[in-house]
């Protein structure tokens, strides 16, 4: 890779297979990418393509069936016991359903302090001060709301509390899985702006997983597009959205609905639905829906290849190359 920066997170050939030996579900099928320090890498794709599984495998909430995940040079997939737990404090994950991911019967300040209590890393006074600081940072007045129970909060406020908790151990990498998908647009904008501010303030690196293309573009420096357990394309956000090279990326962007009366009325709609991960197509996994597919696409898997600095695509016939011919 031509990027001179060293990656904070280095994912190589990561795979996760669910199901049984006879009926394996290939949810993540050998994906590789880097996340550089201080950047936000967006991960988009339609439901079932393996985004959450990727996030969980990095966290080892699900066990990878193959590949490596290096955080600051240490392979998370081989660590055990205390070393693993310690490494895990360096990464945190925030989930979609803000209400169910917080214990409704606990007080807000105890929820935020959970990671601190778990590591017994601070004294009582320090704990109090840290929690107050974190809650203030996410826009929740600790003196007014700190003693209330999580069930008394709206979705947006719960998501603020989740963010505060995730920051308690000062993680390096934050994995956000559909964290604003359940929120209304007005609240979603508040949370996205908050995330941008905290990212700068805490020097965070983000892996931002979502199915909403506009949301992902808004927060990401680079974006990776997944389809059926594979990465189709990775590139700088603006380039990838303006000049997608993979046919699937192009269809996905074409289907996105823009809140604009003059946005083009969608002509090219991707037909059909993704095949089952129980029985993925040979060669290129997108070939059953791709208008450009040839015999080569059925027999040979396209590998992720760099076609411009920092822009990689897994397609035998990248679109701009095709256009030039």
């Amino acid at each position: 890779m031509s990027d001179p920066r060293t990656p904070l997170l280095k994912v190589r050939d990561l795979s996760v297979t669910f199901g049984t030996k006879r009926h394996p579900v290939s949810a993540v099928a050998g994906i590789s990418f880097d996340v550089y320090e201080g950047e936000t890498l967006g991960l988009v794709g339609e439901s079932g393509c393996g985004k959450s599984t990727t996030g969980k495998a990095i966290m080892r909430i699900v066990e990878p069936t193959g590949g490596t995940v290096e955080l600051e040079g240490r392979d998370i997939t081989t660590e055990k016991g205390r070393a693993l737990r310690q490494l895990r404090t360096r990464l945190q994950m925030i989930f979609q359903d803000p209400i169910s991911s917080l214990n409704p019967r606990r007080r807000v300040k105890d929820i935020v302090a959970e990671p601190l209590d778990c590591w017994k890393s601070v004294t009582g006074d320090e704990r109090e001060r840290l929690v107050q600081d974190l809650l203030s940072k996410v826009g929740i007045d600790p003196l007014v709301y700190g003693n209330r129970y999580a069930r008394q909060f709206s979705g947006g406020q719960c998501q603020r509390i989740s963010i505060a908790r995730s920051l308690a151990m000062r993680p390096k990498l934050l994995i956000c899985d559909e964290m604003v998908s359940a929120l209304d647009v007005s609240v979603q904008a508040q949370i996205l702006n908050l995330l941008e501010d905290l990212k700068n303030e805490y020097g965070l690196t983000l892996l931002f997983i979502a199915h909403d293309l506009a949301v992902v573009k808004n927060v990401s420096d680079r974006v990776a597009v997944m389809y059926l357990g594979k990465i189709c394309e990775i590139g700088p956000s603006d380039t990838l959205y303006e000049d997608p090279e993979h046919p699937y990326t192009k269809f996905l962007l074409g289907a996105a609905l823009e809140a604009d009366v003059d946005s083009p009325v969608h002509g090219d709609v991707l037909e059909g639905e993704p095949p089952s991960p129980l029985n993925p197509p040979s060669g290129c996994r997108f070939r059953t829906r791709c208008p450009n597919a040839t015999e080569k696409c059925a027999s040979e898997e396209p590998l992720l290849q760099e076609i411009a600095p920092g822009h990689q695509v897994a397609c035998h016939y990248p679109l701009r190359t095709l256009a030039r011919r």
Partner: protein
Amino acid sequence: MSDRLLEVRDLATTFATAGGPLPAVGGVSFDLNQNETLGIVGESGSGKTVLSRTIMGLQPRTNVTVSGSARLNGFEVVGASEEAKRGIWGTEVAMVFQDPMTSLNPVMRIGKQIDEVLRVRLGMDKAAAKARAIELLELVGIPSPVERYRAYPGQLSGGMRQRVVIAIALACSPKLLMADEPTTGLDVTIQAQILNLLDRLKSQLQMSVILVTHDLGVVATRTSRIIVMYAGRVVETGSTRDVFQNHRMPYTRALLESSPKVASHSHTRLQAIPGRPPNLMKLTAGCAFAPRCAYATERCHRERPELTAAEGPGHAFACWNPLPTTRGAS
């Protein structure tokens, strides 16, 4: 007017709850013409679903008070008996909900579910109903309809199930199709397929469509007129173009500006709306948006603005301090 299909006047729906009366819809008026597609947009809790269900006459029997009028092709829905309403459901108006599983019976083959409607409502015999059901499955773009006729809902994807629900809604050729968040929760490519399908069916079958959604992107290119709701009321209405490009009510603008755009550069700062929608049980006498509005003045907190006509055809907004018009500016 002869081509008017639906007339809604001062329609209000209030639930009696343990905490007191909850005015979910607080006096809504609008008209819908034949072959028109109207969008109803607003954040969750703004009363879109309750409004749609009230227009359909679908309300819980207890704890609800409905006032005002909703005339569908001359039939007054408000106060009508269940039996009278059953006469218009399916033939005059049909509804598609967000979650197709709420409308489908999970243990009954989908073909049977369509057959049943055709036989009970249209008095078709078994063979005719089956033939028509397969035709309907084909109409809504279900591949291999003859085989799928025998499938159970659980064997279909979310997008396919929504197509089945649409097929059932169309079984008795309704004049008005109400689609409440029909694509929410579906993937973008499937969403585009379903919205294109609704567009096609609307022209093919000469229906009117009410598209209810929290997503401005869904209505931007698929409706001719829009109603924007906030806290149970219409705060702005007009042609889709006027609402998007010449909105006068600050909430409409705030809603448009707070959503991220695919066309904007990454890291564009979003214009978030502070706070959140009001508790409907604690509404004040003023404008419901006042606590969040950057333009609020003293009067806004005291007195609620009524809908006021703007220049555009059918364009009206409810605001004491409207944004300047952009008409004639470009």
